[in-house]
Protein backbone atom coordinates (compact mmCIF):
# COMPACT_ATOMS: atom_id res chain seq x y z
CA UNK A 1 0.00 0.00 0.00
CA UNK A 2 1.31 3.46 -0.96
CA UNK A 3 0.68 6.42 1.33
CA UNK A 4 1.71 9.85 0.16
CA UNK A 5 3.24 12.31 2.64
CA UNK A 6 3.13 15.90 1.43
CA UNK A 7 5.98 18.35 2.05
CA UNK A 8 5.15 22.05 1.91
CA UNK A 9 7.85 24.67 2.52
CA UNK A 10 8.07 24.71 6.30
CA UNK A 11 6.61 21.23 6.88
CA UNK A 12 8.45 19.61 9.81
CA UNK A 13 6.96 16.24 10.66
CA UNK A 14 6.98 14.74 7.16
CA UNK A 15 9.88 12.39 7.87
CA UNK A 16 8.26 11.37 11.13
CA UNK A 17 4.96 10.69 9.38
CA UNK A 18 6.81 8.61 6.77
CA UNK A 19 8.52 6.65 9.53
CA UNK A 20 5.13 5.94 11.09
CA UNK A 21 3.66 4.87 7.74
CA UNK A 22 6.46 2.34 7.33
CA UNK A 23 6.08 1.17 10.92
CA UNK A 24 2.39 0.62 10.18
CA UNK A 25 3.27 -1.62 7.26
CA UNK A 26 2.79 0.57 4.20
CA UNK A 27 5.15 2.31 1.75
CA UNK A 28 5.73 6.04 2.26
CA UNK A 29 5.79 8.16 -0.90
CA UNK A 30 7.12 11.70 -0.72
CA UNK A 31 4.89 14.27 -2.44
CA UNK A 32 6.13 17.79 -3.27
CA UNK A 33 3.67 20.67 -2.81
CA UNK A 34 4.46 22.25 -6.16
CA UNK A 35 3.95 19.08 -8.20
CA UNK A 36 0.39 18.36 -9.26
CA UNK A 37 1.11 14.65 -9.00
CA UNK A 38 -0.19 12.20 -6.43
CA UNK A 39 2.04 9.43 -7.79
CA UNK A 40 -0.79 6.89 -7.69
CA UNK A 41 -0.89 6.72 -3.91
CA UNK A 42 -3.77 5.03 -2.11
CA UNK A 43 -3.98 7.60 0.68
CA UNK A 44 -2.44 10.93 1.63
CA UNK A 45 -1.09 12.37 4.85
CA UNK A 46 -0.69 16.10 5.43
CA UNK A 47 1.89 16.21 8.25
CA UNK A 48 2.58 18.72 10.99
CA UNK A 49 4.83 21.74 10.91
CA UNK A 50 4.74 25.42 10.16
CA UNK A 51 4.06 25.43 6.43
CA UNK A 52 4.76 28.90 5.05
CA UNK A 53 5.72 29.90 8.57
CA UNK A 54 2.03 30.01 9.52
CA UNK A 55 2.00 33.26 7.57
CA UNK A 56 -1.42 34.90 7.26
CA UNK A 57 -3.15 31.96 8.95
CA UNK A 58 -1.96 28.43 9.54
CA UNK A 59 -2.43 26.44 6.37
CA UNK A 60 -3.91 29.39 4.49
CA UNK A 61 -1.25 29.46 1.82
CA UNK A 62 -0.57 25.72 1.62
CA UNK A 63 -4.15 25.06 0.69
CA UNK A 64 -3.56 26.69 -2.70
CA UNK A 65 -0.60 24.44 -3.55
CA UNK A 66 -0.80 22.58 -6.88
CA UNK A 67 -0.82 19.23 -5.11
CA UNK A 68 -3.82 20.28 -3.03
CA UNK A 69 -6.07 20.54 -6.08
CA UNK A 70 -5.51 16.84 -6.67
CA UNK A 71 -5.89 16.03 -2.97
CA UNK A 72 -9.25 17.79 -2.81
CA UNK A 73 -10.47 16.00 -5.89
CA UNK A 74 -9.26 12.62 -4.65
CA UNK A 75 -10.75 13.21 -1.21
CA UNK A 76 -14.11 14.03 -2.74
CA UNK A 77 -13.84 10.72 -4.58
CA UNK A 78 -13.24 8.82 -1.36
CA UNK A 79 -9.44 8.68 -1.03
CA UNK A 80 -8.42 8.54 2.62
CA UNK A 81 -6.69 11.72 3.77
CA UNK A 82 -5.22 12.34 7.23
CA UNK A 83 -4.28 15.85 8.31
CA UNK A 84 -2.12 16.04 11.44
CA UNK A 85 -1.80 19.37 13.26
CA UNK A 86 -0.76 21.79 10.50
CA UNK A 87 -2.24 19.22 8.12
CA UNK A 88 -5.58 19.53 9.94
CA UNK A 89 -5.27 23.31 9.54
CA UNK A 90 -4.73 22.93 5.79
CA UNK A 91 -7.79 20.64 5.53
CA UNK A 92 -9.89 23.22 7.38
CA UNK A 93 -8.68 26.08 5.19
CA UNK A 94 -9.42 23.91 2.14
CA UNK A 95 -12.93 23.34 3.47
CA UNK A 96 -12.48 19.57 3.26
CA UNK A 97 -13.33 19.76 6.96
CA UNK A 98 -15.56 22.33 8.68
CA UNK A 99 -14.50 24.83 11.32
CA UNK A 100 -11.12 26.39 11.94
CA UNK A 101 -8.11 26.04 14.22
CA UNK A 102 -7.23 29.18 16.16
CA UNK A 103 -4.71 30.38 18.74
CA UNK A 104 -4.48 28.32 21.94
CA UNK A 105 -6.62 30.03 24.55
CA UNK A 106 -3.72 30.66 26.94
CA UNK A 107 -1.64 32.02 24.04
CA UNK A 108 1.29 29.65 24.67
CA UNK A 109 2.70 26.96 22.44
CA UNK A 110 2.05 23.71 24.27
CA UNK A 111 3.99 20.47 23.96
CA UNK A 112 2.70 17.76 26.24
CA UNK A 113 1.77 14.09 26.42
CA UNK A 114 -1.95 14.38 25.90
CA UNK A 115 -4.58 11.82 26.82
CA UNK A 116 -7.27 11.37 24.18
CA UNK A 117 -10.42 9.33 23.94
CA UNK A 118 -11.20 7.80 20.56
CA UNK A 119 -14.92 8.31 20.03
CA UNK A 120 -15.39 7.23 16.42
CA UNK A 121 -13.66 4.14 15.07
CA UNK A 122 -15.49 3.94 11.78
CA UNK A 123 -13.09 6.10 9.82
CA UNK A 124 -10.26 4.98 7.55
CA UNK A 125 -7.74 6.15 10.13
CA UNK A 126 -9.28 5.04 13.44
CA UNK A 127 -10.66 1.54 12.87
CA UNK A 128 -7.78 -0.07 14.82
CA UNK A 129 -9.08 1.51 18.00
CA UNK A 130 -12.16 0.68 20.03
CA UNK A 131 -14.71 3.33 20.90
CA UNK A 132 -13.89 4.81 24.28
CA UNK A 133 -10.24 3.71 24.07
CA UNK A 134 -7.91 6.13 25.82
CA UNK A 135 -4.50 6.81 24.31
CA UNK A 136 -1.63 9.16 25.15
CA UNK A 137 0.11 10.90 22.26
CA UNK A 138 2.04 14.16 21.97
CA UNK A 139 0.21 17.43 21.45
CA UNK A 140 2.44 20.22 20.22
CA UNK A 141 1.11 23.41 18.75
CA UNK A 142 0.29 27.05 19.31
CA UNK A 143 -2.91 27.17 17.24
CA UNK A 144 -4.87 24.10 18.17
CA UNK A 145 -8.14 25.55 19.42
CA UNK A 146 -10.94 24.05 17.34
CA UNK A 147 -13.65 26.63 16.68
CA UNK A 148 -16.84 26.54 14.65
CA UNK A 149 -20.32 28.03 14.86
CA UNK A 150 -23.09 26.42 16.90
CA UNK A 151 -24.72 24.95 13.82
CA UNK A 152 -21.56 23.21 12.73
CA UNK A 153 -20.95 21.93 16.24
CA UNK A 154 -24.46 20.49 16.42
CA UNK A 155 -23.95 18.79 13.09
CA UNK A 156 -20.60 17.30 14.05
CA UNK A 157 -21.89 15.95 17.34
CA UNK A 158 -25.23 14.89 15.91
CA UNK A 159 -23.61 12.97 13.06
CA UNK A 160 -20.90 11.47 15.24
CA UNK A 161 -18.15 13.18 13.30
CA UNK A 162 -15.94 13.96 16.26
CA UNK A 163 -13.27 11.22 16.21
CA UNK A 164 -11.23 12.09 19.29
CA UNK A 165 -11.62 14.26 22.35
CA UNK A 166 -9.13 15.62 24.89
CA UNK A 167 -9.40 13.90 28.27
CA UNK A 168 -9.12 16.02 31.39
CA UNK A 169 -8.44 19.74 31.28
CA UNK A 170 -8.98 21.43 27.92
CA UNK A 171 -5.42 22.06 26.69
CA UNK A 172 -6.23 24.79 24.18
CA UNK A 173 -9.83 25.97 24.39
CA UNK A 174 -11.22 23.69 21.67
CA UNK A 175 -15.00 23.57 21.60
CA UNK A 176 -16.34 20.42 23.20
CA UNK A 177 -12.75 19.23 23.77
CA UNK A 178 -12.57 18.31 20.09
CA UNK A 179 -9.14 16.94 19.16
CA UNK A 180 -10.08 15.49 15.80
CA UNK A 181 -12.98 15.29 13.35
CA UNK A 182 -13.95 13.50 10.16
CA UNK A 183 -15.94 14.34 7.08
CA UNK A 184 -19.35 12.82 6.36
CA UNK A 185 -17.87 9.88 4.42
CA UNK A 186 -15.25 9.06 7.05
CA UNK A 187 -12.32 9.17 4.64
CA UNK A 188 -10.96 12.60 5.56
CA UNK A 189 -9.75 12.97 9.14
CA UNK A 190 -8.15 15.93 10.86
CA UNK A 191 -6.33 15.46 14.18
CA UNK A 192 -4.44 18.06 16.21
CA UNK A 193 -2.20 15.73 18.29
CA UNK A 194 0.64 13.77 16.71
CA UNK A 195 0.22 9.98 16.46
CA UNK A 196 3.44 9.73 14.42
CA UNK A 197 5.39 10.68 17.55
CA UNK A 198 3.90 7.85 19.59
CA UNK A 199 4.93 4.77 17.67
CA UNK A 200 7.51 3.43 20.09
CA UNK A 201 8.33 3.95 23.73
CA UNK A 202 11.95 4.85 23.06
CA UNK A 203 11.14 8.17 21.42
CA UNK A 204 7.52 8.74 22.39
CA UNK A 205 5.35 8.67 25.51
CA UNK A 206 3.68 5.45 24.30
CA UNK A 207 3.28 3.40 21.11
CA UNK A 208 -0.45 4.14 21.06
CA UNK A 209 -0.31 6.40 18.00
CA UNK A 210 0.57 3.51 15.71
CA UNK A 211 -3.09 2.60 15.40
CA UNK A 212 -3.72 5.47 13.00
CA UNK A 213 -1.16 3.98 10.64
CA UNK A 214 -2.41 0.40 10.88
CA UNK A 215 -6.05 1.44 10.51
CA UNK A 216 -5.42 2.69 7.01
CA UNK A 217 -4.19 -0.71 5.90
CA UNK A 218 -7.34 -2.30 7.29
CA UNK A 219 -9.39 0.32 5.47
CA UNK A 220 -7.73 -0.46 2.15
CA UNK A 221 -8.09 -4.20 2.54
CA UNK A 222 -11.84 -3.82 2.83
Amino acid sequence: MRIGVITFPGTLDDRDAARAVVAGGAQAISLWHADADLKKVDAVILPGGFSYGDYLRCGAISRFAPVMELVIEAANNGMPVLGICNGFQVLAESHLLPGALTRNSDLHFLCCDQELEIVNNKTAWTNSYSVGEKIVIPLKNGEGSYQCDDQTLAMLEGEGRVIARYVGENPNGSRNLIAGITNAKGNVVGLMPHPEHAIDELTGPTAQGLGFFTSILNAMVK
Partner: protein
Amino acid sequence: MKKRFFESPAASFKREQTMATIVVDVMLKPEILDPQGNAVASALPRLGFTFATSVRQGKRFEIEVEGDVTPAQLTEVEKAAEVLLSNPVIENYTVRVEK
Protein backbone atom coordinates in the same frame (compact mmCIF):
# COMPACT_ATOMS: atom_id res chain seq x y z
CA MET B 1 11.08 59.43 9.56
CA LYS B 2 14.46 60.05 11.15
CA LYS B 3 17.54 60.77 9.11
CA ARG B 4 19.80 57.68 9.17
CA PHE B 5 23.50 57.62 10.10
CA PHE B 6 24.66 56.44 6.66
CA GLU B 7 21.69 57.71 4.60
CA SER B 8 21.70 57.26 0.84
CA PRO B 9 20.19 59.79 -1.62
CA ALA B 10 17.40 57.29 -2.34
CA ALA B 11 16.48 57.17 1.33
CA SER B 12 16.37 60.97 1.58
CA PHE B 13 14.02 61.01 -1.38
CA LYS B 14 11.74 58.36 0.07
CA ARG B 15 11.39 60.28 3.31
CA GLU B 16 9.48 62.91 1.36
CA GLN B 17 7.12 60.52 -0.52
CA THR B 18 3.40 59.76 -0.03
CA MET B 19 1.46 56.75 -1.39
CA ALA B 20 -2.10 55.60 -2.10
CA THR B 21 -3.04 52.65 0.06
CA ILE B 22 -5.96 50.24 0.26
CA VAL B 23 -6.51 48.99 3.78
CA VAL B 24 -8.16 45.69 4.60
CA ASP B 25 -9.07 45.16 8.23
CA VAL B 26 -9.77 41.60 9.32
CA MET B 27 -11.40 40.80 12.63
CA LEU B 28 -12.54 37.55 14.20
CA LYS B 29 -16.31 37.14 14.09
CA PRO B 30 -17.90 38.33 17.34
CA GLU B 31 -18.79 34.81 18.45
CA ILE B 32 -15.27 33.40 18.04
CA LEU B 33 -13.00 33.16 21.09
CA ASP B 34 -10.29 35.84 20.96
CA PRO B 35 -7.63 34.95 23.54
CA GLN B 36 -5.24 37.64 22.32
CA GLY B 37 -7.86 40.34 22.72
CA ASN B 38 -8.67 39.01 26.17
CA ALA B 39 -5.01 39.07 27.17
CA VAL B 40 -4.76 42.71 26.12
CA ALA B 41 -7.96 43.56 27.99
CA SER B 42 -6.48 42.00 31.14
CA ALA B 43 -3.17 43.77 30.76
CA LEU B 44 -4.59 47.29 30.37
CA PRO B 45 -5.94 47.76 33.91
CA ARG B 46 -2.71 46.28 35.30
CA LEU B 47 -0.96 49.24 33.71
CA GLY B 48 -3.49 51.71 35.02
CA PHE B 49 -5.67 52.01 31.92
CA THR B 50 -9.31 51.57 32.85
CA PHE B 51 -11.10 52.84 29.77
CA ALA B 52 -11.84 49.49 28.10
CA THR B 53 -14.89 47.31 28.60
CA SER B 54 -13.60 44.87 25.98
CA VAL B 55 -10.79 44.49 23.46
CA ARG B 56 -10.72 42.47 20.23
CA GLN B 57 -7.55 42.00 18.21
CA GLY B 58 -7.43 41.79 14.42
CA LYS B 59 -5.18 42.17 11.38
CA ARG B 60 -4.62 45.09 9.05
CA PHE B 61 -3.30 44.71 5.49
CA GLU B 62 -1.85 47.79 3.80
CA ILE B 63 -1.83 47.34 0.03
CA GLU B 64 0.08 49.94 -1.98
CA VAL B 65 -0.95 50.66 -5.53
CA GLU B 66 0.45 52.94 -8.22
CA GLY B 67 -1.45 56.10 -8.86
CA ASP B 68 -5.03 56.51 -7.64
CA VAL B 69 -7.23 53.64 -6.51
CA THR B 70 -9.87 52.53 -9.09
CA PRO B 71 -13.25 50.89 -8.37
CA ALA B 72 -12.07 47.86 -10.34
CA GLN B 73 -9.08 47.48 -8.05
CA LEU B 74 -11.32 47.73 -5.00
CA THR B 75 -13.50 44.92 -6.31
CA GLU B 76 -10.44 42.76 -6.84
CA VAL B 77 -9.24 43.51 -3.33
CA GLU B 78 -12.62 42.46 -1.96
CA LYS B 79 -12.29 39.15 -3.77
CA ALA B 80 -8.79 38.68 -2.41
CA ALA B 81 -10.04 39.48 1.07
CA GLU B 82 -12.76 36.85 0.74
CA VAL B 83 -10.50 34.12 -0.60
CA LEU B 84 -7.11 34.71 1.01
CA LEU B 85 -6.77 37.60 3.42
CA SER B 86 -9.57 36.37 5.66
CA ASN B 87 -10.98 32.99 6.62
CA PRO B 88 -14.74 33.54 6.21
CA VAL B 89 -15.43 30.65 8.59
CA ILE B 90 -14.18 32.68 11.52
CA GLU B 91 -13.40 36.20 10.26
CA ASN B 92 -15.07 39.33 8.84
CA TYR B 93 -13.30 42.03 6.83
CA THR B 94 -13.70 45.63 5.68
CA VAL B 95 -11.98 47.38 2.76
CA ARG B 96 -11.25 51.09 2.50
CA VAL B 97 -8.90 53.55 0.81
CA GLU B 98 -6.39 55.55 2.80
CA LYS B 99 -4.47 58.57 1.57
